[in-house]
Every structure is written in C-alpha cells, then in structure tokens.
C-alpha cells in the first residue's frame, strides 16, 4: 500500500477575491458543474449560430500537459479552441487571459473563471516569475493551456508577431505545443464590436511541436516564437 498523500487545494487559505485571480485556483464540485453547464451552452451556440467546424482533431495529443496556441483576432478565439478539445481535457483547459482586461473587477473575474476557466496573466508583469508560476501549474496538474502568443487581438485580423514569452514557457521541456488557426472569428466578432455578429468559424489544428533541445534563454525563446508562427501560418494555408 502506498502511503496516504493529502493534497489540499492549492489555493487554500486565500480570500475569495485572491482565489479568483490566483493561477493556483482549483474548483470544487459546484464550480465543475457550473463550468460543464456553461460549456454545454457555449458549444451549442458555436455549433448552431457559427457552424463551428474543426479540422485536424487527430493531431491533439492524448496525454496532457500541452499548450494550444493560435492567431488572435477576436474574443471568440479562446472558447473556439477550448470547444475543439474532448470533454475530458476541456475540464482541465485554462485559457490564459489578460489580467488587466478580464480580472480587474470581481464581477469580470467571476465571469472569466466560471465561464472561461481563465487564468490571469498581467501584461505589464509577465516576466520570469509569472511565467514560472504558470509553468509549474501546467506541469504539476497536467493541464492544457490555451494562449495567444501575439499578446493581444490583431485589430486588422492579420497574424502579428509572436512574443517570446511562449518560448519561455516551454523551452527545454517536453511540453507539446499544438499550433492552430482560427478562421472567421475576426469577421464574426472583430475587436471593435461590442457584440458578436453572424459568420462561420473554422479551426485547423496542426501537428504538435516540442522544444526539449531548445536552450532556455532569450535566443531560444525567440526561435521558438518564430517557429510557432510559421506553424500557425501553415495551418492557415490549409484552411
């Protein structure tokens, strides 16, 4: 018999407001049920109104942890990528959302955590410490991160440059990165519109890459960012 191992919730002892903003947030039964309900509604909405189509699902790794990345041009992107995951993995999928947009007020943070299951990354404080905390969570809990290396929604809908932070998250590890391309999100819900309009959504999922041999330094991070951008472009050409 193995010795008993207690693993208290990682966010134990934090106040409600602190918990909402913690990258160590863990939900209980009620949070899990709420999120399952929210996802059933979101998937139905994406399928019925936006005729969501997903290509390349076979490229998704069976084992977690891994990171899904894509072009970013719309608030649809995170939920669209999560919708592409099988239900088992979606439970442990966390979109990395801008703290300064989604976690400023308690109301926004509650929405972002219950509906999106988002974890915050503050754009002005996304240095080594913040990324290390995220990487620890990703590996220890074997979860899925959904993130957008451009760092913000492209106002013109075209693929921008990738920031080196994605490299810093995965360099020197066996964590798989799955490049994806989302088509139609910018037309359906561009950044300058408050509410989404009609339009078809398509996701193309590429083959996973990993960067075990890449050195965990700036040059390595930048080469990862470049390589991933090319992989996303390749997905775009396939759609």
């Amino acid at each position, binding site marked *: *018999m*193995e010795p*008993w*191992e*207690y*693993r*208290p*919730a990682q966010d*134990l*002892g*934090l*106040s*409600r407001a602190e918990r909402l903003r913690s990258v160590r947030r*863990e939900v*209980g*039964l*009620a949070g*899990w049920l709420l999120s399952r309900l929210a996802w059933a509604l979101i998937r139905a909405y994406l399928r019925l109104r936006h005729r969501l189509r997903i290509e390349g699902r076979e490229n998704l790794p069976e084992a977690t942890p891994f990171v899904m990345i894509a072009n970013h041009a719309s608030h649809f992107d995170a939920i669209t990528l999560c919708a592409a995951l099988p239900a088992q993995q979606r439970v442990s999928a966390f979109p990395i959302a801008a703290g300064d947009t989604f976690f400023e007020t308690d109301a926004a943070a509650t929405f972002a955590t219950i509906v999106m299951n988002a974890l915050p990354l503050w754009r002005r404080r996304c240095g080594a410490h913040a990324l290390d905390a995220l990487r620890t969570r990703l590996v220890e809990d074997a979860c899925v991160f959904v993130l957008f290396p451009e760092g913000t929604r492209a106002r013109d809908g075209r693929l921008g440059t990738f920031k080196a932070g994605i490299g810093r998250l995965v360099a020197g590890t066996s964590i798989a990165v799955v490049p994806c391309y989302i088509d139609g999100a910018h037309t359906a819900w561009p950044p300058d519109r408050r509410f989404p309009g009609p339009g078809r959504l398509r996701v193309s999922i590429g083959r996973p890459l990993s960067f075990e041999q890449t050195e965990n330094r700036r040059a390595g991070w930048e080469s990862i960012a470049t390589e991933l951008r090319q992989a996303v472009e390749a997905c775009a050409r396939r759609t």
Partner: protein
Amino acid sequence: MTAAERLWDPGSAFDHPVTLWTTVVLIGLLLVAPIVTLALARIGIVGPETRADVLVRCKGWAILAPAILGPILLGSFWVIGATCVLALLCHNELSRATGLFRERLVSLVVVLAIFATALSAADHWYSFFTAIWPVSCAVVAAVAILPDRPQGYVQRTALGVLALSLLVGGLGHFAYIANDALFRPILLWLLVGVQLNDVFAYVTGRAFGRRKLCPATSPNKTLGGAIGALILTTCVSAYVGHHVFEGTGMDTPAALLGAGVLISLSGQLGDLVLSSVKRDLDIKDMGTTLPGHGGLLDRFDSLLIAAPLVFHYVGYLRPGFGLDQPMRILTAP
C-alpha cells in the same frame, strides 16, 4: 402545535422560558462583554493581548449569534435549511483541505446525502433519516471504484466516510431535533452547552491550566481547562436542562448531570477531532469562510460529535423527539 406552526411560525418563539431567557442573556452578553473587557483593560486588570483576543472573539460572535439564533427563533424549517447550508459549506472546507474535492463522484455522494438528510428532517421521516448514513457510506465505497484507479481507493473512500460521519451523522442529528415541539429550548440548550464549554475551557485554562492536555494535537489546551469546562458546563447544562425537560424521563439529577458530562466531553472531543485533522494535513485553518476567524468547521467543530451523542442519549431517556408531531408531512402516502 401544528406542523406549519412549528416549521415557520415565529409567533410562538418565546413561549418557552428557556428560549426567552437564553435570547435575552445572549444579546446581553454580546453587548456587555466588549464593554467590560474595555473597562478592565483601561484600569489595567486585563492586558492588551487578552483585550485584543477577546474583542476579536466578540466580533466573530456578533456575526454568528444572529445567524444561529435567527433560524431557531423563526421556525424549524429555517433550522433545517440553515443546517443544510452549514453542512454544505463545511463539506466545501473539509473536501478542499483534504483533497477530497478532486474525487468528484465521492464528493457528489456526500453532497446528495446532505440534501437527503435535510429532506428527511423537514419531512420528519425518521426511518429515511437513519437509512441515509449507512446507505451513503456503502454508495461511497461503490462509486470510489468507478475511476478504475485502485491507487488511493482506501484513502478516497475513508475521506468520504469521514465527511459523511461528521456532516451527515453529526450535523444531521442537530437538524433532526427541529422536529420536536420543544426544538427551540432543546437546540439552544445543546448549542449554549457546547459553546459555553469552549468559553469555560478558555477561561479556566488561562486561570488554572498548567499541564498540557495533548500538546501534539492542540498545544493550547490544558488539563485544567478541560476539567474546569467539564465541571462548569455540567452544572449549567444540568440546570438549564431541568427547565427544558421538566416532567420527562430526562428530569432526574442523574440523567441531567449525565447529559452535562456528555455535552462537555463530546464538545471537547469534537474540537480535538478538528485539531487532529488540521495537524494531519498541516494546515492552520480549515478555510476563510468567516473573515478573520478561519473556517466554519473551526467554529462548529464541537457540535459534530455532541449532536449525535446527545440526540440518542436524550432520545433514549426522555424518550424520543417529536413523537407527538405529524410524521412524513411531505411524503405521507
């Protein structure tokens, strides 16, 4: 008293003198305690540390006392509802602290058992009430197989059974007392007993406590505090109990003193149960539900063991709870 009156008619709240006087004394204490402490601190009898400590406790009670007293005065429906909410919140704390929350099926069985307990209590259906604990323990042992992960099977089953024992077994019996026509004085007698027990242990421990009771489990508890609480709680409980149970099988000196000893011992044991859980998990508080006072389980721990023991002790000697009240008021065939 009709079932409807008992469930939600606060009109008869103060019919029993024990309810009236407990309410008056509680409100009085809440007002007087901080004033006396401040006055004693000013003339130097009480040190600044004790002063801060007592004031923090008073602040906690200013929130808790109305939250506990309110449902009891409003009616037994509110007692059962509030106990159900309390059990759910305590389950949230316990499962997050032990890691049981990751075992969603086991956790779900505990939650359903808590709801079923509230339903059986509201319905006054005793045989359903007694069935819930053994059945849900068996169901926990069964659903813990489903993840097809033998590693940790014993642990997740045991944690589920512990949660059921403390929350369904412990708090459930507290809720079921609400079916008695005299539920207000009986519940207040029990609550005041276990809470005064804490206060007595604290005060006599400070005055006479030298030998540690069980330093590895709870470093602040002393033998002096435990014995002081045992003597004082037994006296107060027996005195109040005499007025609550007048004319029943409970109303003999031996039965009343026995109940007082039971309340004091089981109250202190409940406290130590929670201390043991926290020591084992290496955490300080069970949660942050009550800002500045730790978790709800930390506050209601002394009730967890006392409620079922006192329920069956009184049920045997008195005898019974709510036997003159209509049964199965929701599900009567």
